[in-house]
């Protein structure tokens, strides 16, 4: 019975084995075969993502990271925060109820690289912005267990004293423009100054920041110390904008799966 069922396959397989018997005598045949066979999957799955229009929704109100926020994002990456925190709320009921509307592709369209994560040792951060005060964020980063006794997060107290390196920000924004983030020449030229001004609401530069990045931009001394632009300022500024680059997810009624 089984033999009968398998018979048509057996012939195909015999043919394959015979062909292979010849192929495996030529290293170039194997090489080309491997490359050809291994290329198909990636081509089919990756290439269309760049051309199909509905891969990424159009969010009219999508705004860019300010230089300070981008610097904060770079610190987030440097410290390996992505190893324990995801930034991707899945379309599942419990996640939507716990964290907020599920994440849209549009929200990370300017994220180079994406930080969707693979493991939640700590909670998801996709909608963290505005959830806690700057003061809470700062104290939590300095000593997580002072705010959340059960926390197993490492302390990042040094961010409070490390002065933020802003000189390379124009270069960084320019590189981001090369890969597709629409920063203007003006934004790039003023990047270093804007980073500092975003922590000084009463300074002359603060007006320039809201002019270039929108009235809704958070402009304040994020770490509670207005004199010094620290890495803490940058990281907290980034954390406070998570999930708030566009309002689109809140407009679409989430239909989460059970």
């Amino acid at each position: 019975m089984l033999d009968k069922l398998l018979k048509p396959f057996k012939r195909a397989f015999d043919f394959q084995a015979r062909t292979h018997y010849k192929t495996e005598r030529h290293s170039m045949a194997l090489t080309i075969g491997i490359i050809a066979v291994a290329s198909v999957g990636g081509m089919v799955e990756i290439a269309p993502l760049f051309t199909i229009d509905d891969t990424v929704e159009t969010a009219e109100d999508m705004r860019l990271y300010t230089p300070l926020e981008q610097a904060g994002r770079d610190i987030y990456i440097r410290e390996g925060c992505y190893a324990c925190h995801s930034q991707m709320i899945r379309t599942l009921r419990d996640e939507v109820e716990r964290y907020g509307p599920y994440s849209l592709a549009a929200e990370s369209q300017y994220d180079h690289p994406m930080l969707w994560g693979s493991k939640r040792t700590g909670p998801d951060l996709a909608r963290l912005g505005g959830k806690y005060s700057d003061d809470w964020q700062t104290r939590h980063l300095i000593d997580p267990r002072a705010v959340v006794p059960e926390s197993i997060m490492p302390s990042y107290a040094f961010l409070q004293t490390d002065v933020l390196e802003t000189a390379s920000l124009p270069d960084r924004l320019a590189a981001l423009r090369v890969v597709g983030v629409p920063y203007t020449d003006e934004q790039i030229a003023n990047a270093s100054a804007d980073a500092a001004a975003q922590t000084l609401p009463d300074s002359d530069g603060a007006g320039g920041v809201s002019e270039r990045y929108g009235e809704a931009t958070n402009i304040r001394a994020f770490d509670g110390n207005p004199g010094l632009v620290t890495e803490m300022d940058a990281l907290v500024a980034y954390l406070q904008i998570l999930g708030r680059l566009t309002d689109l997810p809140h407009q679409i009624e989430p239909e989460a799966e059970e």
Partner: protein
Amino acid sequence: MIMKLTGAERQTALILCIAVTLVGLVMAAAGQGDLMGMQGWVVLAYGGALTLLLMPYIDAGEPAKEDREASYYDDPTKAGIIIAMFWAVIAMGMGVWVAAMLAWPELRFDGAWSSFGRLRPVHTSGVIFGFGGNALIATSFHVMQRTSRARMPSQLTPWFVLLGYNLFCIVAASGYVMGVTQSKEYAEPEWYADIWLVVVWVSYFALYLRTLARRKEPHIYVANWYYLAFILVVAMLHIVNNLAVPASWTGAKSYSAFSGVQDAMTQWWYGHNAVAFFLTSGFLGMLYYFLPKRAERPIYSYRLSILSFWGITFFYMWAGSHHLHYTALPHWVQTLGMTFSIMLLVPSWASAGNALMTLNGAWHKVRDDATLRFMMVAAVFYGLSTFEGSFMAIRPVNSLSHYTDWTIGHVHAGAMGWVALITFGSIYAVVPLLWQRKGMYSWKAVEWHFWLALSGTVIYVFAMWNSGVIQGLMWRTYTEAGTLRYAFLDSMTAMHPYYVARTIGGLLFLIGACIGLWNVLMTVRHAPAQATERDHPSLPETNEPALPAAE
């Protein structure tokens, strides 16, 4: 070892070492005030150390004349195996430390460098690339020469591949500690390290092809197909996933060419196929050579080998999107990923079954010989974890398992149970052969290592299964009123006992690896020597196969 190189080869080597040193110097000077400058010092130290090592031998005259055609070139293999064992101890030690940090978060130093986020990639890359990569390079040199019955065409290229690759590993690991990362998991090194790896990898591929071109066997043995697929596809994956634009030529920071959803797909296409081609294909190459060799039985089925090889090469490339179920990735890609992940079970089990069936008639050897037992258990774990992987790729299962420790458990069932065990088995099989010893220095130590490794893996995997499933269930448990029952924090505190258990499992595994390193070093230095077995490229007219042919 150095004196086996000819005078001309030593001079070329010296020029290369000095070139690396100068590149380090340029990086250190240009990257001042940036982390790249500190990485430059690492390159400088590495190149400088090799230069100093070579210097005394530059005028030492020619090596004793030998017929290079009549023997294999094994020095790089020997070095690679010992380096791999050192990486094992370092990277697994790092793993135990970061595991302990999750149970006791204060278990660290004051500096930024010792936080979980920075040390975790040292562990993952250290095990995958440091331990696994060196073992793959070393064993592939051994296997390609034996199965081709040909010596490697050059004495310098294998050293360039091995030492160049280790430079990449060292730059990567030291970079993580300083905070140099592009945050793509298992592809964290920055652009300059990535470019260097491409150079090394291309020479590796060329070396492989050149050796195959000299072979005296008409057919390319199955282990070589797998090694070849490993080299080729890892190159493809590495190049595409690491396309990035540096912020400046003197800084370490770069930005990925892709963003958001495209970046996620590319990253997991890379990430999952790193599992497929780095952690599976290459190690199947080891399995297909060392297991039949040690069991002294031909591979059970030639056709299963073919089915498995092309199945893995084709299906795996589609499966990466199962890491992105329920995310913003278009639904059709998720479905493709799930479908192919399930189909993958066929070629995976074809290999696992082929390996186990090969042992038919040799099971008494499995009982008596811990080395063969390492390989047998590895094949079993390979079968188990590929089954688990296909299962976890099913959407509803993934909704529970994803983001939890279950994933970590699954990865470690593969990494400890399959990758590490087949490697240890292969190393125990090849070390006495390479150094011409009667056997390992202590067979009892091999037994100890086996049981420590097995119990460590089992404890680890069970702890992570439990914590992962509990975590996933707690996240989605509702009260009767229809509200979420547990805060996220509740699920976190529930993990503590499992994190302790995991640390213990990892520690047992680490102790085993330390015993392994000790045993290898003692074998090299003190084990009784043996008269040379016939282990050289035979003359073409004798025409005997390097391995018994399968049916």
